[in-house]
């Protein structure tokens, strides 16, 4: 009796989840369709498919600059946020220290904060400091929001870390640097790797912070928005799809490298 009820509940849960996943990807598919249809205007069903707008988007000098800006910002944000977050995660989860609760709360606040308001607040602050907004100030803005996220991602890994391992290494005479390299880092590596991937992708897709803090320098999401409000051009869905595919490829590649790293670690552990 109970098993029958459970099977039916499980079926309903699977069906509901499938439905929600399909709904999540529906607009992304609509964008892909619009970017791949021929002609200036989008109408469904699509009569003729063509890659003309992909070609035009790809060849546009304006867009090449956007891609450069987005990649540059995301790369710098990735490296810096992992460095910040590595130490942040240790303070968050590893050491029992007096200010830890307060630190945890302060760290979560930027995540629990409306990004458009954060962007405007940073704009005022940069203005008060006499710094004119550019891609560099956008990097700072991205860091304020992304470092806490990455810190949480790495902190989850630190929580599963047994400090006894570090103590054992130092009891056996290992220097602090040697312990860091041979014990701490290998254990935290999966968390650091996920954190870096998150940092890059979140910076790549960020719109509200870039809008206010990048000044005259544009990024892909910022440009898409400015074209969106100006009237329809198929370059918007074409570039949107290209940006989405880039993110998907990175996530897939990142996942693959993680699997390979884990397999190599398992192999090494088995060989002793």
């Amino acid at each position, binding site marked *: 009796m109970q098993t029958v009820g459970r099977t039916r509940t499980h079926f*309903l*849960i*699977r069906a509901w*989840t499938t439905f929600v*996943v399909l709904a*999540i990807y529906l*607009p*992304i*598919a*609509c*964008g892909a*369709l619009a970017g791949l249809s021929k002609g200036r205007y989008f*109408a*469904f*069903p699509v009569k003729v498919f063509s890659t003309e707008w992909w070609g035009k988007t790809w060849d546009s000098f304006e867009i090449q600059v956007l891609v450069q800006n987005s990649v540059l910002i995301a790369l710098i944000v990735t490296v810096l946020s992992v460095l910040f977050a590595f*130490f942040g995660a*240790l*303070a968050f989860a*590893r*050491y029992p*220290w007096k200010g830890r609760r307060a*630190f945890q*709360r*302060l760290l979560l*606040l*930027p995540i*629990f*904060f409306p990004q*458009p*308001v954060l962007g*405007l*607040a*940073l704009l*005022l602050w940069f203005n*008060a400091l006499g710094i004119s907004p550019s891609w560099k100030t956008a990097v*700072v803005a991205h*860091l*304020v929001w992304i*470092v*806490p996220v990455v*810190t949480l991602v790495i*902190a*989850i890994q630190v*929580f599963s870390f047994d400090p006894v391992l570090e103590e054992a290494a130092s009891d056996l005479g290992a*220097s*602090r640097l040697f312990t*860091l390299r041979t014990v701490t880092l290998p254990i935290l590596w999966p968390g650091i790797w996920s954190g870096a991937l998150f940092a890059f992708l*979140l910076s790549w*897709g*960020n*719109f509200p912070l870039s809008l206010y803090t990048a000044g005259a320098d544009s990024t892909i*999401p910022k440009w*898409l*928005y400015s074209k*969106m409000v100006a009237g329809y051009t198929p370059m918007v869905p074409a570039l*949107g799809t290209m940006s*989405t595919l880039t*993110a*998907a490829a990175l*996530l897939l590649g990142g996942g693959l490298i993680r699997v390979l790293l884990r397999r190599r670690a398992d192999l090494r552990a088995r060989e002793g």
Partner: protein
Amino acid sequence: MADASLSAPGPKLSPGLRASLPVLLLLIAGFLAPLLTVAAYAFATPKSFEVFRSFTLENLSAIFDPNNTVWTSFVWSLALAFACVAILLVICYPIAFGLNKVFGKWSGLVSVLFVFPLFVSENVRLYGWVLFFIKNGVLDGALKWFGFSGGPELLYTPGITLFGMVYVYLPFMLFPMTLGIAMIPKDLVDAASDLGAGRLMIWREIELPLAMPGILIGALLTFVLAAGAVAEAKILGGQSVITITQDIEVAFTYAQNWPMGSALALILVLIVSGLALSAMARLDLDKILGKR
């Protein structure tokens, strides 16, 4: 590690404080200082840039003036955020339960499917919905193709704004909720079941209270983010609803009234961070994130 790199002579700091320093400095210079700047501007003379040189309550009294209609934006934003949370609780609970108890080895893949949209710029995804709902778009075109007279006019209404918020903030509800449900020990549920508790009773007396911290974080996160949302109302809602973030933006850009914009932002920040801090004070983060 942190001890080695920073063991310079000087006053001795605890290892935790030393490790926290880089992030602490970033958040002081990049988060707290900007918020103080907003507060300073909120008390400056309207339509001026004389920050720190003048102090006036004019901006705040203008907002609370009954003749000013800005309160409708606050009401809209908070009401939409509230509705968004309520809808997401219902949508996400079965999925979060499934991720823990039903999908088994597929959970990882399903999680990635829900994480991925976070990395696609939200305006791109919202624009996809515009292409879906617009005249001659995917819905309208498909219905006509099947011989119907065309799709309903859904775009540019408050309802579609709410729909957009539910869509964009879904992962922010789902993942904390999933962490929360992961905190329910299986033994406890089994024990209750052996003692003869019914499914509904187990859910109400055991599962729900134990999963509550995660659910609360999800609800809080989505409420705060939805209260600060702007793109949904602009792109999908066609400004049929003016959100508070929209008013703030207009004050900063077209109106060139930074002090007024700051005063509005300050009120929103007070509401939002008051909620966030009071909820966080009740939560044990170590337990939720460390599953200990």
